[in-house]
């Protein structure tokens, strides 16, 4: 018999209570996996979208809303003159309800701009000109809206014909409704306004060149901020708020987990008071008793963490299929996140066991003689 078996037997002494504690900590860790995975995935999918469009720098004013704040379209003219810029593309991005979809990305792009070039037609065609009342749908957006070529999509008060289904090479692109910028500006009443300028640096630019380009753009565009593509979402107030909410909720879930494990371990120590005294009486050192309790709580955390990762991943996979958010989620369920979540659970277990372990070590062995 190993010491590990002694620890396991302690946990199996009350299997229902141990099981319920595991469920409690699993739910907490599942919340960590799901919320952090979703918020990180959100940032990464935007970064992937930028990469797919071949954008090096994004000029936008990321406020507290999910979509950037609008600014004058002629800002683009100031940027385009700067050295080191190969191309620019003005964009108006909005996130709004479209027919049955409660949240969809509308990506209105400057007609002829480079941000149209990454779109690969799966079926149909691109709009013939900037004024044609037509849209192309990313393949996921088409699934969500249940639209096929020739159908119409109602945007604000305008009915637009679906002329193409595209593969944009990234979830954000595939989940978008893509439309020409002038048409959308007219429909949404944002004439002369844009909220993003995609900038492509001259070929061969290094990372440092791109960063220098951002500095140069920022010096001539006070109404927006230039950032390396992909970083702009992470720096937005909205994303930071979502991220903080995710971690805050996760922290609460972890605190609940700590209290759950601590409660279980304290109950264990109280119930096994005489048993612990017997172990002390037959020669166990107090340090071994402490180790036994800490191992028990650490194992609760560890197995709770594994359970939490499984529940979290399953939960996110189920969420991805929900019609309301289908196509908007690309959670980052990386191995790193899973390992970190299990480590958090393990630390939760150990921390929760410290006080019960200390209590157990204060017991006097003479209590073994009683009863």
């Amino acid at each position, binding site marked *: 018999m*190993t010491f590990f078996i*002694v620890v396991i037997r302690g946990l199996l002494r009350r299997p229902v209570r141990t099981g319920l504690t595991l469920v409690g900590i699993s739910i907490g860790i599942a919340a960590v996996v799901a919320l952090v995975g979703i918020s990180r995935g959100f940032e990464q999918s935007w970064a992937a979208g930028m990469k797919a469009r071949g954008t090096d720098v994004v000029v936008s004013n990321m406020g507290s809303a999910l979509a950037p704040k609008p600014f004058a379209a002629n800002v683009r003219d100031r940027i385009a003159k700067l050295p080191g810029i190969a191309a620019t593309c003005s964009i108006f991005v909005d996130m709004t309800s479209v027919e049955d979809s409660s949240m969809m990305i509308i990506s209105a792009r400057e007609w002829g701009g480079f941000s149209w070039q990454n779109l690969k037609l799966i079926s149909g065609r691109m709009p013939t000109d900037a004024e044609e009342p037509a849209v192309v749908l990313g393949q996921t957006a088409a699934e969500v809206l249940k639209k096929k070529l020739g159908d119409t999509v109602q945007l604000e008060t305008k009915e637009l014909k679906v002329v193409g289904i595209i593969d944009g090479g990234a979830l954000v692109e595939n989940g978008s409704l893509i439309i020409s910028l002038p048409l959308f500006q007219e429909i949404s009443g944002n004439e002369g306004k844009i909220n993003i300028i995609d900038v492509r640096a001259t070929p061969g630019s290094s990372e440092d060149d791109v960063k220098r380009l951002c500095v140069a753009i920022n010096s001539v565009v006070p109404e927006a901020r230039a950032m390396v593509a992909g970083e702009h979402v992470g720096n937005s107030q909205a994303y930071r708020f979502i991220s903080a909410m995710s971690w805050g909720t996760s922290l609460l879930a972890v605190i609940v987990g700590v209290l759950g494990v601590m409660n279980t371990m304290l109950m264990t120590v109280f119930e096994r008071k005489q048993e612990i005294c017997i172990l002390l*009486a037959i020669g*166990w050192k107090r340090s071994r008793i402490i180790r036994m309790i800490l191992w028990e709580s650490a194992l609760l955390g560890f197995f709770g963490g594994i359970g939490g990762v499984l529940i979290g991943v399953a939960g996110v996979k189920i969420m991805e299929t929900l019609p309301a958010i289908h196509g908007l989620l690309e959670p980052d369920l990386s191995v790193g996140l899973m390992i970190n979540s299990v480590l958090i659970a393990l630390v939760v277990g150990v921390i929760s066991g410290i006080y019960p372990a200390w209590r157990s070590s204060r017991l006097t062995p003479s209590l073994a003689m009683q009863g």
Partner: protein
Amino acid sequence: MSAAQDDGKTCVFEAVGLTKEYDEGRGQALRGVDFRIHEGEFVAITGPSGCGKTTLLQMLGALDVPGAGTLNYRGESIADLPAPAVYRAREIGIIFQAFHLLPTFTAIENVQLPMFEADLSMSQRKERAAKLLESVGLEGRRDHFPTKLSGGERQRVAIARSLANSPSVLLADEPTGNLDSENAHFILDLIIRIHREQKMTLVLVTHDMTIAQRASRTIQMKDGRIVSDQQL
């Protein structure tokens, strides 16, 4: 350690003016106890309930400390031992009245529990526990949990456990108190046989005079004091 010698016999325990209060001084379990116990002796401590005999046994086993006075083991104060757990694990074997086997462990696992504090490998622990169970006649019950054993069998497992680390002293607190007469007789014979074969010092607490008469020496207590100390 330098143990005292009395007529060539090594003094294992020496108590001088031992006292113990309880309930914050409202009661006294021991009121000045003096004795010496020598290597290989079988000492029965007797007396009515509440006379202090179990308190004394707890002190011998370093499970409790005296209020005043000194209690030495082989010349060293038990209260000042740097590592009382090591003393309990290596020098002392304790047999409880209520057996006190751990219910989630089998007989052989219960016997192995004290061995975690000895420098033995897992296979050595298992082998030694099996031999000890064989020595108490329980080789066929080694994988049974305590709930599947009779009272006598449980006490035999507890005896095997008390011998786990080859202690030099066996302390028994009413070891037959929870057994029927047939099992009590068997267990007592077993303890005495182990004491003789292994030349261990045996201190047995009992209120049963027929058991005490089998000891080589009887210390009788009353109201926290020794009232008689007889060699039999």
